[in-house]
């Protein structure tokens, strides 16, 4: 049963709207814009690259969020989800996983490919960057879900979403960029990666419950 529900949630996000391709293209184009802006000096690029890819990943996490719950509310699916035999936190966890699969994970993949292609010394920090990006992608989807729940039914939801989600994305951004830069600075990446993992575990554990409570309250309050 859960497989059918997850497939539908994911296909509603990707089919017809091509969210995965949007995320990939957004990442590549945004990174290219930064590189054109700061110049192609390899040394400068080397230093800035970990921070750049992380900052763009946070922004890529905003893609798909306005419709994550709003589309379901508009066509009555949200009511059906609330009344279903599957618990609402489980449904929210599926939403979070679908968002990660459709936007943040493809963007993280693009980040790895672009870094390998553009940064001559990428091999020095690629494992740390890959681990961090995988964790970060999931935690950005978790805080995104929370933002989507909080702005459900609000006017100017798009603006509110950015204001809520971007600050929540700052801790994983700092830990992740720190872990990727650590090998270049000659320090251990263990601490920032551990903090990032702790943040991710807390976010994916708590966000579905919090989002479910918020959605239920928003829908059923007269």
């Amino acid at each position, binding site marked *: 049963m859960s497989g059918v529900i997850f497939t539908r949630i994911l296909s509603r996000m990707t089919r017809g709207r091509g969210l995965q391709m949007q995320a990939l293209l957004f990442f590549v184009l945004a990174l290219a814009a930064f590189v054109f802006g700061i110049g192609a000096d390899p040394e400068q690029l080397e230093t800035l690259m970990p921070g750049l890819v992380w900052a763009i990943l946070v922004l890529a996490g905003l893609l798909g969020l306005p419709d994550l719950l709003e589309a379901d509310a508009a066509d009555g699916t949200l*009511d059906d989800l609330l009344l*279903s035999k599957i618990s609402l936190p489980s449904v929210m966890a599926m939403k979070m996983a679908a968002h990660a699969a459709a936007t943040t994970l493809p963007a993280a993949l693009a980040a790895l490919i672009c870094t390998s292609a553009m940064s001559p010394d990428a091999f020095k920090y690629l494992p740390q960057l890959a681990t961090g990006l995988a964790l970060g992608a999931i935690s950005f989807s978790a805080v995104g879900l929370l933002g989507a729940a909080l702005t459900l039914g609000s006017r100017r939801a798009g603006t509110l979403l950015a204001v809520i989600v971007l600050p929540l994305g700052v801790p994983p951004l700092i830990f992740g960029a720190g872990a990727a830069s650590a090998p270049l600075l000659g320090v251990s990446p263990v601490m920032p990666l551990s903090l990032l993992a702790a943040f991710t575990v807390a976010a994916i554990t708590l966000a579905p419950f919090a989002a479910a409570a918020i959605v239920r309250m928003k829908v059923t309050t007269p």
Partner: protein
Amino acid sequence: MFLLENLTVARGNALMALNVTRTLKSGVVLLLEGPNGSGKTSFLRALAGLLKPASGKLDIPEFHWISAISVPPSVETPREYLAFHAALSGTIDTRKTDPFGVDTVLDTPFNRLSTGWRQRVKLTRLLQSQPPLWLLDEPSDGLDAKGMETLLSLIKSHTDSGGIAVIATHQPQLWPHAETMQFVGAA
């Protein structure tokens, strides 16, 4: 049988239903009648647990919920839609009958189906499981004469076998022997 006791339903500052006490016995069709915006849907949502009542108690059995919002014309197919809704009810789509004739359009995307056909697909959900109570919001919207006839016979066979249907409608003449509840508008 289900029971509503002193049920008061409000939406924002508008009072939709005040102290409704009612017992609905098996085999009954209850029509919620009234002009647009009078609170029929809010009352139905309160019965479904989708709107918190301002006060009162309700004791209702398992139910089917069919809202008035039509299925959007997306690239999704009726087969996927019905499988999804069956999964939400914790079952799989094992309908043995197809009174609305949707089996002929199972793989046609909704964006190539008319409003009436999308409504037929939505109503086919009623056949996926057999809860004792049906909560239907404007179920006849978009249906042609044949679809309407099918809907009426489906509801009749549900109530004949002891089920209960609560229907918000602007076409009360379709159910001449039903119990009714009038909504007059927000107070």
